[in-house]
């Protein structure tokens, strides 16, 4: 920041408590036009609360905010908009049943004269201009539901740009984007900066923050622990600032090296479902961690669903623990020792309103039940869950509380816990660390290591290559529903990426 620049936004002593707990404590920072401020912190560090105060969603308890030299005290999101601050949330706020143009002007439709009729031609013209400004080449009459996640986000950005936002806040913008969409977003961020827009960028993906930011700010337990120009940070330093201690490593070390001759627990041969996966053949051995890397739409998640019996396959052979199976259902997959942690924790992994105990016991109910009626021995069941919770280092005041009240990391531990109870031979995990903080990630990795050491074969599906390289013994790369490459340690990043992007780019 040069001395001549007046900060666009300046914040001092911002504080907010919920129910007597300090969510944000005396945070102060400033940002100038054309700069990008990266904000990192674990879940619960206060990032969202801080941004909600800037966006007028919640009022601060104390502290001052100044926008372009004038005091700024938003009481509702509309005030923020008028002050030129736009907030692009993790979950996008678009009306999927309306067209792009209608979404862009939802709160200010161009009118015909002073009449309450929409000037459609003008609406389309202005929408087209707005899309042009951010480089999205789609007809403005397209309904938002027909757009890919990345395109939807561009619409949201167009909305902000169109409203002449001088400061745009991004909260985890890349969570649901493909690699290509992410690159497009980053280019757009550079353009916006060049035009003088200030940007606050919140993300768990530290590499992205380090790549984009001019300045970085680290939050921990609601307080600002460090703020400075980007070159003073690297990944390791960011992590130790975020968690408040040094993590020896990002990934726990593997157990004893695997014997290559061990039996396969999962074997496929020519597994094919037209339009989804094509001729999938591989073996997963006892105690092995096998990674599956691919872009969104490469068929990686679809493969997982087929292996667990959720979706069908047309041809090919599937063998579990040495026995061939056909017409697999989830119940049968579980009976044959398969466990599945899906990529959608909230929609498919958990009963959000049910208690921790109910969630963790769901898969193994029969083990704590007696008689032909299946009468549950509640005490045995609770004892078993408490035991599992200890193993998982689950942080929860009471196992009778609904899982909705837990943080993302602890929710993921509950999902893992319910499968751990089943002592699986095959564990399929799809994006297990998405949206959870660094500390919880490490614990998830640890659990995977432990399971592998006990002889479970782990099929680790992820879109984060670093994580796969850190955790896996072998790696399969998928593209267009096919396995296009197999890699062993030591992994060659370039070659893996080349395989995944071949033709796709």
């Amino acid at each position: 920041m040069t001395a001549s620049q007046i900060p666009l936004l300046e914040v001092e002593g911002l504080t907010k408590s919920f129910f007597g707990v300090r969510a944000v404590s005396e945070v102060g920072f400033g940002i100038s036009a054309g700069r990008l401020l990266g904000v990192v912190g674990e879940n619960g560090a206060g990032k969202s609360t801080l941004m909600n105060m800037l966006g007028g969603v919640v009022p601060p308890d104390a502290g001052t905010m100044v926008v372009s030299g004038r005091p700024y005290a938003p009481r509702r999101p509309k005030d923020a908009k008028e002050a030129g601050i736009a907030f692009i949330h993790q979950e996008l706020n678009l009306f999927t049943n309306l067209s792009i143009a209608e979404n862009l002007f939802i709160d200010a439709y161009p009118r015909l004269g002073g009449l309450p009729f929409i000037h459609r031609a003008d609406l389309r013209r202005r929408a087209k201009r707005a899309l042009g400004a951010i480089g999205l080449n789609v007809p403005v009459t397209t309904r938002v539901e027909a757009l890919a996640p990345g395109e939807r986000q561009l619409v949201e950005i167009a909305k902000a740009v169109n409203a002449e936002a001088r400061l745009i806040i991004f909260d985890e913008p890349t969570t649901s984007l493909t690699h290509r969409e992410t690159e497009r977003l980053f280019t757009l961020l550079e353009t916006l900066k060049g035009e003088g827009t200030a940007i606050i960028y919140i993300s768990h993906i530290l590499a992205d923050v380090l790549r984009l930011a001019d300045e970085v700010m680290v939050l921990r337990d609601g307080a600002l622990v460090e703020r400075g120009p980007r070159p003073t940070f690297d990944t390791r330093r960011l992590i130790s600032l975020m968690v408040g201690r040094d993590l020896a490593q990002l990934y726990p070390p593997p157990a004893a090296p695997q014997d290559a001759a061990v039996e396969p627990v999962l074997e496929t041969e020519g597994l094919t479902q037209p339009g989804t996966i094509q001729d999938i053949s591989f073996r997963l051995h006892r105690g092995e961690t096998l990674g599956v890397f691919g872009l969104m739409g490469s068929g990686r998640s679809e493969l997982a669903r087929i292996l667990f019996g959720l979706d069908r396959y047309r041809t090919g052979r599937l063998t579990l623990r040495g026995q061939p199976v056909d017409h697999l259902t989830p119940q049968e997959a579980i009976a044959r020792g398969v466990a599945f942690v899906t990529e959608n924790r909230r929609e498919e992994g958990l009963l959000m309103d049910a208690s921790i105990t109910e969630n963790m016991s769901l898969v193994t109910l029969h083990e704590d039940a007696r008689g032909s009626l299946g009468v549950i021995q509640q005490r045995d069941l609770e004892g078993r869950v408490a035991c599992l919770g200890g193993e998982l280092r689950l942080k929860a005041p009471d196992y009778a509380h609904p899982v909705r009240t837990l943080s993302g990391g602890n929710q993921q531990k509950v999902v893992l816990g319910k499968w751990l109870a089943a002592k699986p031979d095959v564990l399929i995990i799809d994006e297990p660390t998405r949206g959870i903080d660094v500390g919880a990630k490490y614990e998830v990795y640890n659990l995977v290591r432990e399971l592998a050491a006990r002889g479970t074969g782990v099929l680790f599906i992820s879109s984060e290559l670093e994580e796969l390289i850190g955790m896996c013994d072998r790696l399969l790369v998928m593209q267009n529903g096919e396995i296009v490459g197999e890699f062993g340690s030591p992994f060659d990043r370039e070659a893996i990426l080349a395989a995944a992007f071949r033709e796709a780019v």
Partner: protein
Amino acid sequence: MRSVNPTDAPNRTGGLATLGRRLVVSEYFVILLAALLFVVLWPIVPRIASPQNLANLASNVWPLLAIAVGQTLVLIVAGIDLSQIAVVALTSVVGGAVMTQAANPVLFEQTPLWGVLLSEGGGILSGSPLAVPVALVVMLGVGALIGLFNGSLIAFARVPPFIMTLVSLSFFSSFAVFLTRAENISNLPSAFTVLGQGEILPFVSFAALVSLSLALSIGFLLSRTVFGRWVYAVGQNPRAATISGVPRARVVVAVYTLSALCATVGGVLYSARLGLGRPGFGQGFDLLLDVIGATVIGGTSLFGGQGKILWTVFGVILFVLLTNALNLLNLSYFTVNIVKGSFILAAALLDVARRRLLVTM
């Protein structure tokens, strides 16, 4: 920080508000409300506490409770069963046709049952000592088949429960009327009518025994068995339940079958009390309003995943008491239904508010 530790939540409000909130969320809210209603009405309508009226209240509770217990199961899996009253009507007619001891040819000669199940001497098992047990088995069988039919189409063909059971309601209630040309089948054996009218001890009727045992067994099934956990899991999140190995389709079929069986038990009790095989049970919406109203007022969520048999017991008591009080106040039929409807709306709004409370707590 979007979610905040739930244990801190009560601190933010004052004592009274906390008490009010705790009361609304409490499981005894409904029975307390019933007690309050009774106490308030006593001085206004002293007749409400007369022995005859109390006996009348009790006899109105039991058949409704049996049916509402089944409805509770269905609501917990996030469904609804509108066809229950058609099950009551059809089983009532079929059971009556099997065991009646005499049928008037003037009334029944033109019916499809005449010469097949019915003759001047009554049903095919008229006078046989097996008439009542066989009739009960046939009734339960017919009920189970209707439940299986509903459940299978909902679980496997994915027909939305509302439209499926609406169609069943229309179909089977009309079928009941068709079978007897809308005539009631009378002359039911006393071995049957004692089920609805007889008492073992004063205030302990057969109906009470049957209905309470049913409520207790289903309550046990729901709260203590693997099947019960599955029912809640399917109601809360069918996708997560399936992935956790819960046989979703089988659970749904079982729940609708149990719902129809509960309706059959209700049908047995109603038919026995009136001494009639009555096709009219499936006509009009009075009984349906009572069943769904009592269940929802008890607190079982219309969104699925939440509900208890105990709540339904309380809901039935409150609803029967309310109806009784409105009748004793000499209000017209229409006024009574308007008030009942308002109560159900209030319960539904409370359900929505309760969900919001639980989510933000």
